[in-house]
């Protein structure tokens, strides 16, 4: 088996394990930590269905961000939904036969990569141009954008500049999933692209990327506004009553 194939196979196994275990541990912590008080940002829905709808609007349209700042919203939306389509498009490298809906979005997925890159550039520009955002940006905030941008650009590069043997890439990943390793093409762009993706997977559960699961656990967004109708009591608070 070629050297790089072994390295990348191991890297993907490790990264996947870290991503899954790390995220699961974090989500478990969020779920287990009680929210002792009712703190939805009001006006808030008075029913569970209402909360589901509020959360959907938040995740699908970035509702609060839209109210807040149109520039961040446009760039953030371009980036996130560009990435969403790009990721969906990548399912074709992990499924055989390729699912119909993945086939259908193929053409959009290609252009979505540009939307993703444009959104990232916009967000990055704000970190330099807006004094308030410059003030709150740490080195890690810049590196995170750099990482995502590099992933997008190497991906676009393989699509438009220097093609890789995509059939072999697919064979490599299908092989990983069935523990039947296949050689990975050794194009530099591909190796860089995959290396960066591995990096992203590893840092996901230990970085601000936790906002992805976090938003669903945010008490100001996921609580029902019914404190007078239903008594809300955390286990540790109930102890005080004994």
């Amino acid at each position: 088996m070629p050297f790089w194939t072994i390295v990348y196979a191991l890297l993907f196994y490790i990264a996947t394990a870290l991503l899954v275990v790390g995220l699961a541990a974090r989500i478990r912590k969020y779920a287990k930590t009680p929210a002792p008080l009712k703190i939805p940002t009001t006006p808030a829905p008075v029913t569970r269905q209402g909360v589901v709808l509020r959360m959907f609007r938040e995740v699908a349209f970035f509702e609060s961000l839209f109210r807040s700042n149109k520039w961040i919203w446009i760039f953030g939306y371009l980036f996130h939904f560009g990435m969403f389509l790009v990721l969906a498009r990548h399912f074709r490298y992990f499924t055989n036969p390729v699912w119909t809906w993945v086939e259908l979005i193929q053409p959009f997925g290609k252009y979505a990569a540009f939307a993703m890159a444009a959104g990232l550039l916009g967000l990055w520009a704000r970190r330099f141009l807006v004094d308030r955002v410059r003030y709150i940006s740490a080195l890690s905030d810049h590196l995170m954008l750099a990482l995502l941008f590099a992933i997008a650009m190497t991906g676009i590069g393989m699509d438009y500049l220097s093609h890789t043997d995509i059939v072999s890439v697919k064979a490599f990943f299908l092989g990983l999933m069935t523990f039947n390793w296949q050689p990975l093409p050794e194009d530099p762009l591909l190796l860089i692209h995959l290396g960066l993706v591995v990096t992203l997977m590893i840092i996901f559960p230990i970085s601000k990327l936790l906002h992805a699961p976090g938003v669903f656990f945010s008490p100001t967004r996921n609580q029902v506004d019914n404190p007078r109708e239903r008594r809300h009591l955390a286990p540790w608070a109930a102890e005080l009553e004994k």
Partner: protein
Amino acid sequence: MADFEIPQLKEYPVIPTIQEGVMAHSKPFVAKEEFQQQLGFPGELVDNWQQVAYDKMEELNGKYRSLQVFLDSCVKCGACTDKCHYYLGTSDPKNMPVARQDLYRKVYRRKFTFAGKYFPKLVGAVDLTKEVLDDWYSYFHQCSQCRRCSVFCPYGIDTAEISMAAREVMDCIGVGQKYCNEIIAKVYKIGNNLGLPEPALADTLEGLEEDIEDDTGVAVKLPLDQKGAEILLVTPSADFFAEPHVDGLIGYAKVFHEAGISWTLSSHASEAANFGMFIGSYENMRKVSLRIREAALDLGVKRIIFGECGHAWRVAYSFLNTLAGPFDFLDPKYPVPQHIMEFTYDLIQRKAITLDKSANDDMVLTYHDSCNVARASRMGPMPGGQFVLPREVIKACCNHFYDMPQDTIHDATYCCGGGGGLLTDDLMELRVKGAMPRMEALKHVVEEHGVTHMAAICAICKSQFTKVLPYYGFKMDSIVSVHQLVSNAIVLGNKQ
């Protein structure tokens, strides 16, 4: 008039350029030993304060999902950076919500996250040094916990939750804030924030009864500790003598009188406000809340109604059932607790009281949505009722009403600048500067519509505006209570 620069009110709101450190000197007085101890906190900075603080931070992370999720989730997008009235009024970047949170987050990262432990420089993580603690004390007392940032954050991160945690940590290492902690101690000892003992309270209420009778010829009562009354009214103690608060209290009394319903105040729970929330102490907040339960049981009332008070209404509406419930001994026909606005609104809807709008013809009114009522509570059965009910009551009492610009009202309302335990003279500069966005919006309707008065339903808002309005060229008495308007307009003796 002041030894600091008063912000200019502009034609249109302008986001200021950051000026680092300009408010670093703003610090409230530190609580004395005896008051710290009455609240169960150490009297002065403990020897191993750093470790005690870390332990407390870890404990709070396990107790509050909000804190844990908020500390992890911020992506530094910048959406909140221009939303805080203290940033807009001071230009100090540490008054941007995200930067304020980061004062806490950077210590959290250093001690409790992989990245902060091994790559502190990369993620901006630091230990809790004396300098960082000083910054905490300064800037976590420049947050009025108004939640405006949480409305605009894509993850709903509420800086108030972080401020509360930071204040709790500081209390636990012996660095409490004088204003809040002395007041809580007074509540335990005497029953209210102002330290007004029972005889003085009885005296005040009697005086008010005489005033009302002189004024109207009708014997409107303000009963105290009357067992068997239908309603227990819990109201901020400022309502007993401060202007314009007391005019609101007179309004509640007249409304109850006209409704023909028996009610009482309690000397045991003669305070609606709960400063336990400001310092983030669940235990103290619970202890303060339990007085209301005790008073309700002792007096044998059937309903609990809260007077005009913003943070009090948050604790009452959102937390009281949790902290001091269940209230199964009260009349299940009514929500527990109710807001006086819900009570009066209902009477108006049923035409059970008569209001003469012309009694307020000398005023052109606007309405200030108090932050904690707007973003942390509700009135009536519908979401957003907290915006509708007060406005409907005001409109039923006057002929001239105009709202301030849309982005400064409802859930986008600006804090008065004095909430969250900052209504103290040692923070005057902060209070004046923090009021700027509200003053700008007020100026807009004054010029546009000739507004003369601003109504509010929060004791802190009323006190704060009385103090800061003159700095911006408005009259101090241009702030009024909503029930003051009701008091002026209500026709007494109509429903006998």
